[in-house]
């Protein structure tokens, strides 16, 4: 695979994520500082109703909510350099370690895409402003998800390589040959 930092740069480039988006996101920080916690509470409530995810969060919901609040605040920090994406990459690695089903991470992001729009409509009122800022938020949510998923997939292959003694090239060859 390409160098990680290059992948981050390519993704930003592909989505046209730039300084304007950074400013839009920074401007949203106060809204999410006030209302983000309620969104987090809502999706943890949902995760608690699915046996697969409930088992993973049981007994540590408060700690995980705090972790999540940090993640969310970083979305609006205005700084999207390599260190930002390294932290996202680490989320993917941690999720493999605890066996988080990746489609539920996608589901949480999907929830945030929808709910954040409602929140912005309520708080900003101006439709043009909502559209512009929400577009930037969608981009960063998607890039975050892509990086988390990439790390998740890469970590699984790394673990398989370690366990089986097979190289990544060999695993790729096995996939192609099967």
């Amino acid at each position, binding site marked *: 695979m390409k160098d990680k930092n290059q992948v981050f740069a390519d993704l930003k480039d592909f989505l046209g994520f730039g300084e304007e988006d950074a400013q839009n996101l920074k401007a949203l920080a106060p809204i999410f500082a006030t209302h983000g916690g309620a969104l987090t509470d809502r999706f943890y409530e949902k995760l608690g109703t699915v046996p697969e995810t409930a088992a993973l969060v049981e007994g540590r919901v408060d700690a995980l909510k705090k972790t999540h609040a940090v993640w969310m605040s970083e979305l609006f920090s205005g700084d999207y350099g390599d260190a930002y994406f390294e932290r996202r990459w680490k989320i993917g690695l941690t999720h493999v370690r605890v066996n988080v089903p990746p489609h539920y991470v996608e589901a949480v992001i999907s929830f945030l895409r929808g709910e954040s729009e409602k929140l912005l409509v309520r708080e900003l009122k101006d439709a043009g402003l909502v559209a512009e800022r929400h577009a930037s938020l969608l981009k960063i949510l998607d890039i975050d998800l892509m990086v988390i998923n990439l790390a998740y997939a890469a970590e699984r292959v790394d673990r398989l390589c370690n366990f089986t*003694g097979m190289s990544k090239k*060999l695993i790729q060859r096995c996939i192609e*040959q099967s």
Partner: protein
Amino acid sequence: MSRSEEISKLLKSLTSSSADVEAAAIVDNDGLMIASALPADVEDDRVAAMSAALLGMSDRIVRELGRGLFELVMIRGSEGYTILVRCGPEAVLSVLAARTAKLGLIFLDANRSAKEIARLIT
């Protein structure tokens, strides 16, 4: 003689050394076929990838169980044997032998060939 010609020659001499050795191939750790004297109906690329996978797993289990360094793995089927022997750090020699083969002799020949092949490819 080029390196690959020398390797092919070694494989040929291994397969013709005894009627019990039916076929042989050399595969690198990434599952790429280096040289093959396998039957025509065998899909070289698949067997190469499978051999390398088995090599990787065998290497791991030898270490996990404190058996030193991996040297050889043998699989017995109702119609014969498949024997994988390490050829240095980068490759493995795969030998197909008849069910009735004298294994001691096959091991001897396979080990000797593996050493020579290792010298050629490393």
